[in-house]
Structures are given as structure tokens and as C-alpha cells.
């Protein structure tokens, strides 16, 4: 089961935060096809947001085809968002964590690491402009 959180100071509308967290959970393999999402009541009791916020998030995800509401049963995961199979993210995340460890050991701070990542992404996009479209 997914545990939502809503950051009131993030500037991202609360409903969008919920949408992003479901998509993220699907990509990371935390949620699988057929899994049940918490009810609107469960979400609002846990994170104290307006019920309409949760309904709006679930409607958006349903329109995307990722989840479906089954009458009298609840809301379930219907399919995964387009992109690499679940597990890919966590595998890449692990190798990135190793790389970050190396960078730290070499004396790079967070800002230096972030700018190196940006420069590398930009260079990769220039080398192959179509691949970035797919990722985005």
C-alpha cells in the first residue's frame, strides 16, 4: 500500500503531488498491477487534505489509464506508466548512489554534483536529441 504525503510549502498543488507519488510508486515497483489504492477517506484521514483533492488526483490517474475504479470495491492499478519496466529505476538508482559516493570521496559537494549531472545531460541530449523526448 502506498503512503501519501502532502507538502504544503512545496508550491506543487496537493492533487498533483498525489498524482506524482502514484506514478513514482508504479515506476519503482512499490505498486503493481491489480494493487488497491487507499480509499479517499483513508487518504484524507492520513494527510488531512480536502476530499476533492484526492478525487481530482484519482480522476487524473484514471484518465491516464493507470488506475480504475471498480464499483463497490475500490480503486485499483490498471497498468504501468509508459517507460522502462519497474525495477529499472531502483537498479539505476543503486548504481547512481555508488557514483555519488565516488564523487563525494573525490571532494565534490552537492552543487558540483548537480551541475556535473546537468552538463552531462545537456551533452547527451545534444548528441542524441530524440532520446530526451522519450525520457521526458
Amino acid at each position, binding site marked *: 500500500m502506498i503512503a501519501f504525503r*502532502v507538502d*504544503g*510549502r512545496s*508550491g506543487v498543488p*496537493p492533487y498533483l503531488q498525489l498524482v506524482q507519488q502514484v506514478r513514482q510508486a508504479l515506476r519503482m515497483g512499490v505498486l503493481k498491477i491489480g494493487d488497491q489504492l487507499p480509499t*479517499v*477517506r483513508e487518504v*484524507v*484521514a*492520513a*494527510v*488531512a*487534505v*480536502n*476530499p*476533492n*483533492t484526492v478525487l481530482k488526483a484519482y480522476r487524473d490517474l484514471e484518465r491516464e489509464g493507470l488506475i480504475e475504479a471498480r464499483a463497490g470495491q475500490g480503486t485499483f492499478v490498471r497498468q504501468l506508466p509508459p517507460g522502462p519496466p519497474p525495477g529499472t529505476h531502483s537498479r539505476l538508482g543503486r548504481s547512481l548512489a555508488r557514483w555519488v559516493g565516488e564523487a563525494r570521496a573525490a571532494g565534490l559537494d552537492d552543487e558540483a554534483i548537480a551541475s556535473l549531472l546537468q552538463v552531462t545531460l545537456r551533452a547527451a541530449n545534444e548528441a542524441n536529441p530524440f532520446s530526451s523526448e522519450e525520457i521526458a
Partner: protein
Amino acid sequence: MNLAIETNELSKRYRRVTALSDCSIAVPEGRICALVGPNGAGKTTLLRMLAGLLKPTAGTASVLGGVPRQDPAFLGGVGFLAQEIPLYRGLTAEDHIRAGAHLNRRWDAASARTRLASLSVPLDRAVGKLSGGQRAQVALALTLAKQPRVLLLDEPVAALDPLARRHFLGTLTAAVADAGGELTVVLSSHLIVDLERVSDHLILLSKSRVQLCGDADDLLAEHKMLVGPRKDTSVLERTHTVVHAVRTPRQARLLIRLNGPVIDPAYEIEDISLEDLVLGYMGADAPEAYAHLTAVGEDQ
């Protein structure tokens, strides 16, 4: 769209003081409505008139289609929780639940017990010995046991710590979800970040008058912050309304109510938060000043 609450030029004057002037509001059924404004703006006066505890000097109010009054037929549908959380400190939550069964036509004692048990609030301890958060939960559970269709809450979370506030608001939003669109809430508070999470409707009072009333998302979309050089704004003001302006010798930050697109390229246009909106209409100079006031709980 059914209106749960509607007032028309509602006013309340005491001998010399005007507490509320020409207040016309509409709250659709099923909304959680934030009631905001500085101290003395008339929030408590409005809530007490809606609850039938105070007679208006002029104007009319309609709650669930009826005129607010001290009469069981009206009060059965309305829950009101006053700022001071009125409970008998020597009695337990269970005592209160049993007493409520005798005093109310409709009374869901089981839901009150379940609600409090799920929050680990002891039913058998004197209410005076509970924490502030637990007492507020007892009061809310009792108010909800009436199964009201309109719930009026006057700064119920002002005295609570952040965790207790979160739990209180979670109970409230869950009750609204349970009611499936048939419970309307008006909640006054100074804690704008809380209100931004839970509310979808807004009433902003200032200087005894209604400054804004409407759907929260609509109101936010109708207002923008313009950031740009300090210059004459008379052209801008031909189309838009400047609600509040902060000017330094070189720069200006203008909160405007849109009436069409902004075409002046000198300005950067930013979306605003509920806090920006409230502060703008209250005419505060700097958000920090207000944040400080709310942090120390200015009503306490």
C-alpha cells in the same frame, strides 16, 4: 448546486461598534470553507449568527434553507464548536457521549466511540486530564455525533501543536469524505497553510466586511503577483484591480485581480498562494510579520 449557507447584507452592530457590515456570502453544499481575516474582522460574529446564537441587526441568513434560531428543528442540522471548546472538565468522554444521547434528537454514539478509540483517546478519563489535542478531538467527535449537515468551527486548532492539528483536521476531512457531499464545513483559523490543505472555498473578512467569497481555486486563478520596475500603474489599473502593492525605490510587487490578460512585458507574472491572497487583502507589508504572529498564536 445547492447552497448550504447564504447570507444577504447581514449586519451586526453593538451600541457603538459594527462587528459585521453588509455581509453577503454563499457556500455550496459539501464544501470545506475557510473563514479568514484579522482579529476583530467579524469571523466569530458571523459564525455565531449562522449558528443561531446571535441575532443580526439587519440582513438575512439562511442555513440549510432555514433561518438560524434557537430551536431544535434548526439546531439538529447544525454543529457549532466554539473557540473555547466547551466541555465539562470533571466528566469523561463517555459521560459526554451518554449525555449527548439525551440532549439530541439524532445521536450516533457508536461513531463517536469508534472515532475516539481509533485516535487512542481514553473514554474513561476526566476530560480535564486529557491533552489539548485529545480534548479537541472529544469535542469534534461529539459535534459529529449529531450528524450535522453544517459544521461551524471557530478556530478549533489555534491552541493545538502541529501533530494534534494534523490529527484534528484528518478527522474533519474524513468526516466530510464519509458524508459524501452532504456535510458542509466553515472553519475559521489563522493557520493559512492548514486551511490551504483542507479547504476548497474561501471567505475573507476584513474591517467587518466581506472582501472575497468563492471557490478557492477560482479566486487563486483570478489573482496574480506582478513583479517589475516601480512605475506608474494607472494604465494597468484601467484593466485590473491592484489589491496590494509593495514598492521599493526601484521595484514593485503588485497583487492584482485580473480582468483579462496582462500585456505589459515589464512585469513578471507569478501565481500566488492562499497566504499571498490573504495577506494582500489584509494589507500586510511583509509575510514574515504575519507568520510570526500566527506562530505564537495571537489569540492565546
